[in-house]
């Protein structure tokens, strides 16, 4: 969009002002994230730029906070917890969310809007309210599993957190999958049925591959939700389910250690990696889909 030759003076002024506004918004969004990255290489245990860092003196930088993250037991345990809880919660969210979206896309289902609203409510209701509700709900279930089913206390703790996180992730999956289903050609499932495929085969061989981009991005959102969730896990989990965000939260309050900054940088890197992978995957299948006839 370059400036046309007949642009008036006012249009020229607006053209450049608009660009400046966009740049400002961009800086506003990205600075808090970017500023963390150099700080995480701080040689001192401070949250501020030291004079050495500002002089770009190599002595002002170090990897000691990263070393701390990878060697400190507290951090490692919480990292492992996050890696256990987030993927399992994601799998549950994706399976249930996709099924719900496919079901709700059928025109003959009664009360579709109401059901949809209820299912995505965890995204709208303030987290602290969900968390309070879940605290009471899961403590009853937890007691039942421990006392009547004789399950290990630790395991029950994980189950509770995973289920709670799955509930938080489901709305994202429903929304993204529903969006992909809008463009789905219903005559494809009819064609499959006509050729002798039962509904299950039709779903896995025809519908699923075509709505996969939506399922994947929904899953990504669900994963991130669980991976950086701190409120619900504080309410529902116990100390042995301490996740990475929880550890960061306590780290900030109790230790004020720049290791947090190192963790934050790692998480930013991880998110970028995940998003890129998923975007590439999505584009690939979109390409196949976008070329659908009609």
């Amino acid at each position, binding site marked *: 969009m370059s400036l046309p030759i007949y642009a008036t003076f006012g249009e020229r002024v607006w053209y450049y002002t608009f660009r400046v506004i966009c740049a400002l918004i961009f800086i506003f969004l990205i600075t808090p994230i970017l500023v963390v990255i150099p700080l995480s290489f701080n040689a001192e245990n401070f949250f501020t730029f030291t004079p050495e860092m500002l002089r770009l003196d190599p002595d002002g930088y170090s990897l000691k906070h990263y070393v701390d993250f990878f060697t400190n037991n507290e951090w490692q345990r919480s990292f492992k917890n996050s890696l256990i809880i987030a993927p399992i919660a994601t799998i549950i969210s994706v399976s249930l969310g996709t099924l719900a979206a496919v079901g709700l896309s059928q025109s003959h289902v009664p009360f579709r809007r109401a059901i949809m609203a209820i299912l995505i409510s965890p995204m709208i209701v303030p987290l602290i309210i969900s968390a309070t509700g879940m605290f009471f709900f899961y403590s009853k279930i937890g007691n039942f599993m421990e006392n009547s089913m004789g399950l290990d206390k630790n395991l029950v703790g994980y189950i509770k957190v995973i289920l709670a996180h799955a509930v938080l992730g489901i709305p994202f999956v429903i929304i993204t999958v529903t969006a992909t289903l809008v463009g789905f050609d219903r005559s494809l499932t009819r064609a499959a049925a006509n050729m002798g495929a039962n509904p299950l085969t039709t779903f896995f061989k025809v519908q699923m591959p075509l709505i996969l981009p939506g399922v994947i991005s929904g899953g990504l959102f669900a994963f991130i939700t669980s991976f950086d969730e701190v409120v619900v896990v504080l309410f529902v989990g116990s100390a042995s389910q301490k996740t990475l965000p929880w550890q960061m939260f306590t780290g900030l309050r109790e230790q004020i250690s720049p290791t947090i900054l190192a963790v934050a940088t790692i998480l930013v890197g991880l998110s970028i990696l995940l998003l890129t992978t998923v975007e590439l995957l999505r584009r690939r299948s979109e390409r196949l889909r976008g*070329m659908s006839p009609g």
Partner: protein
Amino acid sequence: MAESHTSDAFVEFERVQKSYDGETLVVKDLNLSVPKGEFLTMLGPSGSGKTTCLMMLAGFETATHGDIRLGGTSINNIPPHKRGIGMVFQNYALFPHMTIAENLAFPLEVRKIGKDEREKKVKRALDMVEMGKFGGRRPAQLSGGQQQRVALARALVFEPELVLMDEPLGALDKQLREKMQFEITHLAHQLGITTVYVTHDQTEALTMSDRVAVFDDGRIQQIAAPDTLYEKPENSFVAQFIGENNTLRGVVKEIKGDLAVVELDDGELIDCKPINVTKVGERTQVSIRPERVEFDKKRLQPGVHTLKAEVLEFVYMGDIFRTRLRVAGNDDFIVKTRNAPDQKRLQPGEQLEIGWLPQDCRALDA
């Protein structure tokens, strides 16, 4: 036009009704039987119920009343994937994430046919529609006509006895459409499969079918071979819908066996053949095809009534001349004449007398 039960009927609709909302009937009392190997076309304007009938046959819609039978057994309670009917969809419905060969292998895979035989059948089906070289491509890499062929091959690859086609040529340009019309009929007859074809294009229906069922208002108005349908329409809807048609309105003056005299609304008299008029005084619409109108006095039968006409417009169309006349107050009376060396080119403003053979002019319902 209820048809009698015949023992060799392969597809049968018996008193079938369909309503989507429980109030209005989209299909009203449909009776139809298609013998094995026939190419039947359901023709009608949009909303006439023809596509609904096809969907009921495929199993995507359920009949509200009545019985649909395939090979003598009722299929009302059989789900679509167990009916074993091939179908070509309007938008082809090729699976975009599979190659052409995978698309064709799909119906064979779900039937658990072994890999070797599967490949053989896929190849044979692709060769049949001259698409053998395209097995490794994806649908999006093919043109509309090629996708059409693939869709056809996919509907035939598992050797169904019945194939349904839902306006399969609608998206193609005229030349390709005419080529495909020929190929589809040729294939269907060669393989001996029964075909039910839905279209709103009457030329397509006439050129392709063994029989055509003309739908309107949820009923079959007439079911007959193409030539019968064109030359002997049984009611004014069919006469209007199939081919070009001139209509004049009037009252029956006298009926003598195979001949009726109709007094047109402006008082002129014409001779015609009574079809669904039975008594004197009844109102009627008479229908005459543009190519059966005669204006050369020497060729008119002596003694028949003639009408005065004024030429309004002459259109040169290459192989034929299309002349618009004013006849008995109708400004849209068309006459078609063949472009022959001795054919007269009428000039606008010219006055003439026109007539026809009484059996070419049919007195239908008003």
